[in-house]
């Protein structure tokens, strides 16, 4: 009896110690929570509030707003462009998740080895990360807009975007393949594959760097002991590298979904941006669209992280 009581007491004491520890871990979240409570809770609240409003810029009156309940959401679902764009984004996302994860892991494993010219390759492979903010896309887009408006103004500044962009044009490749008398299906497949490779390389810079950092944090002594035990490179990849990097695979899958959904050149992003600037419903309709889109993305993140997290290995006992 007394022993059982004793162990119970010990258990109770341990639990409080655990709870104390958990409480002190909350300390680490203080900056983030302060930011949420004082700033972002209100920012998100405002944004959700907008999605229930009808907004329109009227010349003399300025901004016209009116509470319309869920009407903006209903309008978003009736907008065929929007529904189509969401469907397309989802299909693109599926392809991206699989291809980007495989490609970036492959390249990261190569770059983590001691190959010649590693410094050069790593610097080059970092460039897509720099451009991930859409900096260059914006430059190209504003170039096009400026050229159009200035052409209309009748100045002698002509379109020069063609110089820079026309060399590796998709159209050239298309024409070339047509001349080879392949069936249209095959040439379409090749063109899609080429542009696909181009896109995949440019959107997987971040994921590759994360994998690279993850690979660098694996202690070399694990590989050494596996080598002494006679493990081949293939075995040590699947039995050491893969489990050790698996937490980062989850990160990269989630990030690829997020990135694929929120890239600056995503059709929904373009639609939301143009909707928020003009059109009937204005910011209100744009906010409703964005929140619907957010929920769709969240569902897919949930599904993917549920599947991937079954394969993730943490060096912990629970």
């Amino acid at each position, binding site marked *: 009896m007394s022993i059982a009581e004793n162990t119970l007491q010990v258990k109770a004491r341990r639990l409080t110690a655990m709870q104390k520890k958990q409480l002190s871990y*909350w300390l680490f979240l203080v*900056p983030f929570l302060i930011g949420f409570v004082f700033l972002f809770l209100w920012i998100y609240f405002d944004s959700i509030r907008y999605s229930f409003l009808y907004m329109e810029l009227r010349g003399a009156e300025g901004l016209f707003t009116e509470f319309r309940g869920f009407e903006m959401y209903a309008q978003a679902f009736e907008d065929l462009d929007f529904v189509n764009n969401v469907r397309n984004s989802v299909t693109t996302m599926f392809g991206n998740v699989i291809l980007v994860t495989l490609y970036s892991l492959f390249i990261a494993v190569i770059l983590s080895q001691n190959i010649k010219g590693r410094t*050069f390759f790593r610097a080059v492979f970092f*460039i897509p990360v720099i451009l991930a903010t859409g900096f260059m896309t914006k430059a190209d887009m504003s170039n096009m807009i400026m050229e159009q408006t200035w052409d209309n103004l009748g100045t002698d500044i002509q379109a020069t975007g063609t*110089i820079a962009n026309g060399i590796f044009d998709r159209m050239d490749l298309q024409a070339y393949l047509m001349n080879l008398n392949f069936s249209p299906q095959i040439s379409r497949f090749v063109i899609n594959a080429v542009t696909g490779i181009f896109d995949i390389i440019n959107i997987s810079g971040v994921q590759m760097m*994360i994998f690279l950092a993850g690979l660098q944090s694996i202690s070399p002594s694990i590989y050494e002991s596996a080598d002494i035990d006679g493990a081949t490179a293939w075995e040590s990849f699947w039995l050491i590298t893969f489990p050790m990097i698996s937490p980062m695979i989850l990160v990269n899958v989630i990030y690829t979904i997020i990135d694929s959904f929120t890239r600056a050149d995503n059709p929904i992003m373009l639609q939301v941006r143009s909707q928020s600037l003009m059109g009937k419903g204005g*910011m209100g309709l744009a906010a409703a669209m964005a929140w619907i889109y957010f929920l769709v*993305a969240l569902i897919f993140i949930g599904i993917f992280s549920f599947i991937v997290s079954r394969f993730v290995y*943490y060096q912990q006992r629970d």
Partner: protein
Amino acid sequence: MSMSNTAAATAPVKTSKDKFKKAKISLRDRVTKSRIKSFIGRFFLYLLMAEIAFIIIFPLLTKLSAALMSYEDIFDRTVTFIPKHPTLENFALVLKESDYGLALYHTALVSLLAASLQTLVCSLTGYGLAKLRGKLSNAVFFIVLMTVLVPPQIILVPMYLKFRFMNPLGLVELITGKAGVMNTLWPIIILSITGYGFKNGLFILVMRQFYKGVPEEIEEAAAIDGYGVVGTYFRIVLPMAVPMMVTIFMFAFSWQWTDTFYSGIFFTQYKVLANTIFTMPSAMAGAGAVGTNFNSAMLLHTGVLLAIAPLIIIYCVAQRRIIAGIERSGLVG
């Protein structure tokens, strides 16, 4: 006794000698085979890497070619890639018109500040999320995901209004004479120190996953040595996370450097590269320079190159110093 002992001792020696012979043959065989294999493997490896590198660099090369062209070359149909009259005029023009020196200084300052704060705060938040259990911490994790998933355009207006009229306890008005912290470093500092900067949710997610992978035994050993939770983190766990944090720092640094979203909201007067590059051509057009020898596309191409060139240089230097240092030292594992 001694006889059986020697017999037992010699028997395994014989077999091991045999094994050694076999191993020797197969080793020689394996070396030649693997040499050929590795040569072919290496050839295709370098071919692949070179191709990918080419695809990445190509858009920059086209920009470089446009930047080096003189005004005549643009209207010359025979000039496609290599300019006939290469010139540095475009670079000189951009350096002068975009106030490059000042903008570069501001950009470096903002990026360094933002990246340092974001790396530290995201690391802290990630550790908290990795160690906490329960519904409440899951809710916080959901908020983290939300910060990266909500399209930024949709919080643009509410965020602008928050910072435009920011005046906690009337302090801002007391010091500067009017409410709002636009065109100061404060918006970036506030966003960074709370972990809401550009794509900070990703950093938090990365750090959480990293800390979840750290064996619990290490922390238990630290606890036995008498460290508290905070002490364990700063003395034991944080040093292990250095490679991850270096990567995050570089992300944060280069994203703050090239970010046009936050810069466009907060820094309308404060000159940073991400803004001046884009405002420069229209500003010059407004100043009546249209019709003179400049071209908007050429200027933008040159501007983009000049804006990201320092980043690439910094990355190369940092890579040599920091990353190589991490690999050599016993920090990892």
